[in-house]
């Protein structure tokens, strides 16, 4: 987590957790949640345990 950064400004990200995996709680594996960059005001979703840190314009095209 400490080496994660916003792909745009390379600044720090804030984690918010919606769901954590029970048996992996001590590892802190986040299944669903998001990462927020205050500087860019961008929110990056975490789904199925994988943070989506694609730049916003590329993310939209994939959906």
């Amino acid at each position, binding site marked *: 987590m400490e080496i994660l*950064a916003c792909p745009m400004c390379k600044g720090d990200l804030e984690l918010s957790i919606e769901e954590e995996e029970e048996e992996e709680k001590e590892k802190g594996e986040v299944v669903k949640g998001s990462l927020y960059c205050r500087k860019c005001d961008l929110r990056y979703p975490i789904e199925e345990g994988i943070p989506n840190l694609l730049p916003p314009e590329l993310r939209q095209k994939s959906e």
Partner: protein
Amino acid sequence: MDDEKIKREVRAGYAKIAKEGSSCCAPVSSCCGSTHLAEDISKRIGYSEEELKAVPEGANLVLGCGNPVALASIKEGETVLDLGSGAGFDCFLAADRVGTEGRIIGVDMTSEMLAKARENAEKGNYDNVEFRLGEIENLPLADNSVDVVISNCVINLSPNKARVFKEAFRVLKPGGRLMISDIVLLKELPDFIKDSVEAYVGCLSGAIMKEEYLKLMAEAGFPDIRIMDETSFPIEYIANDPTAKAILEDLEMPIEKAKEVAGSVTSIKVRGVKPE
């Protein structure tokens, strides 16, 4: 082809490979799904039998050109970043080397590939491997945060290679090393191949001249770049490789032309170190 179109096509191509479990480099080929063939090709590109057995089944999609040199250099406790990690094959091999104190981060822009990688990580109980959906041109990592950047036959797919090298340089710690394996050209490819989407996704038309590739690396800040290994593709490889075959058929390319193309392409393993 413009950059946006290239990115879309590459993602779509590899998403398809992830879903169908095809074992080769191009989305057009559906002929080589068998695990045995995947293993065969893997051995040819330099992975040992032990390495192939060590990773969960399904992780080895054989989309790379082999990166055993980079893997061999990885030490216990290191943080390793894999650019274009796909289904996670190299990540899992690296994970065994760094041990519990180290960590591996795989970045890939295809969510279907990452879903597979995560599944494989669970199957193999790899606690020190994590995957992120991201672009290698815009790495979601802090400056000076990793010891080694590895990449196996991926950078050729990027429409902005200069930026990929700059990003790799940025995230490396001082003294950290970039160890990549990729396809480069010794001669320019004919136009009809350059314009082919299939050949692009199949790691061919995105490749650039070797000198240009090394120049971009140097411009990113790597002072002394060493080519560790260079392997050309003999025509037999082209003739027996399902990916190459599919591309040839798609382009209706005669064998003479294919020979010419084969002679223009080479696979290199390169190493660069970020100054202390």
